[in-house]
């Protein structure tokens, strides 16, 4: 059980079963390997939060890319399948990192490097896509 005082959600308690481990961390978000998903299935959908358990002030807004980009698909290679321990692709949660600047109209999602979470073992990884059609900055409002 984790207890922490988060910047966006105030004090929270997180059960061990809800801890997602990123063995390689998330690039650019140094110092955090353990996260939890907050607000999933709540009324802020399709957005929810990937809250760091190692740094309570750190939380990334994430979005279900399939809700914003028709025909979205993710390629994973054998190494990534092994790292995530994927046995059942149906148990993989795919998320894209959303940047919400002060000017909310500039809100954008990174379709190029989705975050995959294996719900079977709660292991996560951000995977780079080689598909050049997928933008790093996909603006959600145009």
């Amino acid at each position, binding site marked *: 059980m984790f207890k922490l005082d988060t910047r966006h959600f105030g004090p929270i308690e997180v059960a061990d079963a809800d801890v997602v481990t990123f063995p390689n961390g998330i690039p650019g978000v140094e110092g955090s390997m353990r996260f939890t998903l907050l607000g999933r299935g709540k009324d802020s959908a399709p957005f929810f939060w990937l809250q760091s358990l190692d740094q309570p002030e750190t939380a990334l807004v994430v979005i279900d890319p399939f809700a914003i980009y028709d025909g979205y698909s993710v390629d994973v290679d054998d190494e990534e399948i092994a790292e995530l321990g994927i046995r059942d692709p149906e148990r993989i949660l795919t998320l894209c990192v959303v940047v919400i600047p002060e000017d909310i109209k500039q809100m954008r999602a990174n379709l190029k490097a989705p975050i995959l979470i294996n719900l079977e073992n709660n292991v996560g990884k951000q995977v*780079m896509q080689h598909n050049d059609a997928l*933008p790093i900055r996909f603006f959600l*409002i145009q």
Partner: protein
Amino acid sequence: MLVLTRKRGQSLMIGQDVEISVIEISGDQVRLGINAPKSVTIHRKEVFDDICQENKAAAHVSFNSQELRKAMENLYPLKRSKEESGPD
């Protein structure tokens, strides 16, 4: 930083199983070939840097979840088709 000079067609080894070859040189562009085990991830540095930068920016969102939800209510619907939105 180790600096080596190579000509077209020459290559260099990093460790025992990563080989980088100079395929073609044209003006200020160099085409490189890379042979490496699958476990070695290879990315253009600017793409990797860009992703790091976006992750950093995402981690410093100034909205809280309630403010975000309110803002979202004004902005729905978000869903657009692929055809309407070009690549970045």
